[in-house]
């Protein structure tokens, strides 16, 4: 049955042999997702894009990227990018990057293999040290903080202290817009994932301070991310895992991160 489906749909995610013989690894990354995958002067770039190149290089094939819009949740992204294809043309990738490695998520999505954590994401803030001298989120009882609306940071801050600082949360329509509010000095703080915050800090053009203050949240404040392939492409996942293990050991992963002013955070355990 699975074989029939593969024959009928040439765009389907493929096992290792097919990828090798085609000479191309199709990699799904998120669109407009700095510093992981984003466009700069019309070119797709970012940490995940570099990692994608590294994976393709390991297999001696050419990388081809699909920069995809995020759906309502990662479950729908896995469906559109890895096992069923997008709703219009049914095009999908061999591997999707930046997938949270979580047992529950894996059990819920039995059409994919989620594996190979290459990063530990965690929440952080970047502040103007003069404007925000405090050492806790209590500082935002009377100061503004920018977030991408609807993001993890938004969820955490909106619920913090029973909603006491919710009115001071500036919810931007995108991460870039939140960064712009912080960079211009309009808002003295920005909350996002550590990698996003470090990337924004480097762009601020002034002395800023990156902090990880204690936070009891309604959702996790730290989680590992890895990759996903189709469930019948275990062999591809193993090969990609080897590539990532090597790149972690020989410093290439850290070097890729450094190019985007981000410190590589190895996955916990």
């Amino acid at each position, binding site marked *: 049955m699975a074989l029939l489906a593969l024959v009928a749909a040439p765009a389907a995610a493929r096992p290792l042999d097919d990828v090798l013989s085609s000479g191309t690894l199709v990699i799904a990354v*998120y*669109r*407009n*997702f700095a510093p*992981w995958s984003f466009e700069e002067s019309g070119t797709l770039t970012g940490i995940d894009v570099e990692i994608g190149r590294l994976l393709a290089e390991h297999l001696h094939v050419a990388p081809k990227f*699909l*920069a*995809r*819009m*995020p*759906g*309502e*949740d*990662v479950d729908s*992204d896995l469906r*559109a990018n890895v096992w069923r294809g*997008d*709703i*219009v*043309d049914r*095009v999908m990738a061999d591997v999707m990057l*930046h*997938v*949270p490695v*979580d047992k*529950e*998520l894996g059990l819920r999505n039995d059409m994919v293999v989620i594996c190979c954590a290459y990063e530990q*994401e965690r929440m952080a803030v970047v502040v103007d040290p003069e404007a925000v001298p405090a050492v806790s989120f209590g500082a935002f009882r009377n100061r503004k903080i920018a977030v*991408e*609306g*609807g*993001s*993890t940071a938004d*969820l955490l801050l*909106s*619920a913090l202290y*029973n*909603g006491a600082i*919710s*009115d*001071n949360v*500036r*919810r*931007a*329509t*995108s991460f870039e817009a939140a960064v712009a509010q912080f960079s211009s000095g309009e808002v003295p703080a920005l909350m996002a*994932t550590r990698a996003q915050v470090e990337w924004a800090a480097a762009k601020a053009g002034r002395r800023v301070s990156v902090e990880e203050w204690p936070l*009891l*949240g*309604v*959702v*996790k*404040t730290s*989680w590992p*991310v890895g990759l996903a392939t189709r469930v019948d492409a275990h062999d591809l996942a193993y090969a990609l895992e080897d590539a990532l293990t090597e790149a972690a050991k020989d410093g290439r992963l850290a070097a890729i991160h450094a190019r985007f002013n981000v410190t590589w955070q190895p996955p916990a355990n």
Partner: protein
Amino acid sequence: MTIRKFALAALSIVSLVAGVGWVHAEGPTIADLLKDQDNPKSVLTNGLGVQGQRFSPLDRLNRNNIKGLVPAWAFSFGGEKQRGQEAQPIVYDGTIYVTASYSRIFAVESRTGEKLWEYEARLPEGILPCCDVVNRGAAILGDKVFFGTLDARLVALDAKTGKVVWRKKIDDFEAGYSYTAAPLIVPSKRGPLLVTGVSGGEFGAVGRVEARNPENGELVWSRPVIEGFVGLLDGKPSTMTGKAGETWPGEMYKTGGGATWLGGTYDPETNLIFFGTGNPAPWNSYTRPGDNRWTASRLALDPDTGEIKWAFQTTPHDGWDFDGVNEFISFDLKKNGATVKAGATADRNGFFYVLDRTNGKFLSATPFVKQITWAKGIGPDGRPIYNEESRPGDPSKAEPGKPGKSVFSVPSFLGGKNWMPMAYSKQTGLFYVPSNEWGMDIWNEPITYKKGAAFLGAGFTIKPIFEDHIGSLKAIDPATGEIKWEYKNKAPLWGGVLTTAGGLVFMGTPEGYLKAFDAKTGEELWKFNTGSGIVGSPITWEQDGEQWVGVVSGWGGAVPLWGGEVAKLIKNISQGGSMWAFKLPKTVAAK
């Protein structure tokens, strides 16, 4: 509106209709569009008339001869794109203009079903339309037909050739915007205007209604539906919608939602455009105490300026995803010997509302589905009497990592009635409402991720209320709210309704049948299986002295996107994509 002002408004419409200098010689004029409900030889507007009554004066076909209604032709949309045909076709001068899913439109010869031309929008790779791949129909004026595409663009095509005349971006598809509704054409002091809303949008999207010049697609006015936003008129800021933050905490209004995704209707008598608005954002209602205007509301707009003349909110402080987008249909309410200029709407929230359409005053609201849990009723002021226990739990109060308390809420978020339009019969004085009897278990889903990051989602399971049916077509007396008859359908209904002066009601079912009912009694008189589920809206027209009926067939829409117990009811439905035309042959009609 005072009587004098109303007389002036009416006069200005008459003069508009008379002064047709700006209308092309070819094709239907705005005057034709405004008379659409009275002229059975064509179907020029979504709703068989700008008021959206879906009532045809044709009476040739009736309960005595309907057994003679036979298929005349079927037209396949072709290709591999077979899901979700929600359109209502347009008929003009021997041509049918019908849209199909994945942003396609076809011109078809109305007597034979032969294709004249086809236009398929080139959609961007990896596009993720928020609200399925459907399209609900086209608009026509002069020598052009208009429709919207999944990448949030409006396209004007030459009605004769299908060649693009202009193409305009409504908004950015990368920000999650889309367009699926049938555009509305209304008269104004400066000539006809093409009126649309917006579909979808990621975080920060705010609903708006916009009017464009149909000649070139240039924006004339734009009206944001959320308090605190300033409209546009002729490229300049106009007025603010309400007051900033009046019914929202802090700056939450700035990202308040209220997508206007279903399009609108127009009433020539009051010269008002009626548009509904979607649910507020974010989804978690505990973060936005207040009424959150004007989400989940009906708005009446001035076609000349886009100013809000009145607004009525069906679900203040929505916490159940009860969009307020459902169509508002103008009609004359006869009650206690008086005639009131009224309008009616069957809301997602399960209540059937009647308002004074001149000023938005609340007249009545009655439940049209059973066992509603979220509200005990609608008070004399038109506000719901909430049942707070039925409000989904506060996610921030949930124990980290644990699913929150599960609440069973009726109707489900797909609504007592969803997008599918109801019909109003001038003959029986009844509304025919395609409804669904279902509820939902809803809880906070802690292990959720969005764009690679931890997120707090909501978990849903939609459940039928009754064992033998979800779908329920109801005949409702707007004067009393009384349900005069009910037709029960196993699968949920997702297609529109048509009624005729022949005493008939037409509606399609997911099981594939186009069915006809006796408008007075609800007796099923006729059915025909079109081969795939029907989620479109039927039409009727007269051609060569015969009455024709048309409908698109092709299962899809939101229902198959949700699993659970509902999935069992629809698992045997095949996909499709075609338009069917039926006629009552003269020989049969004469019998």
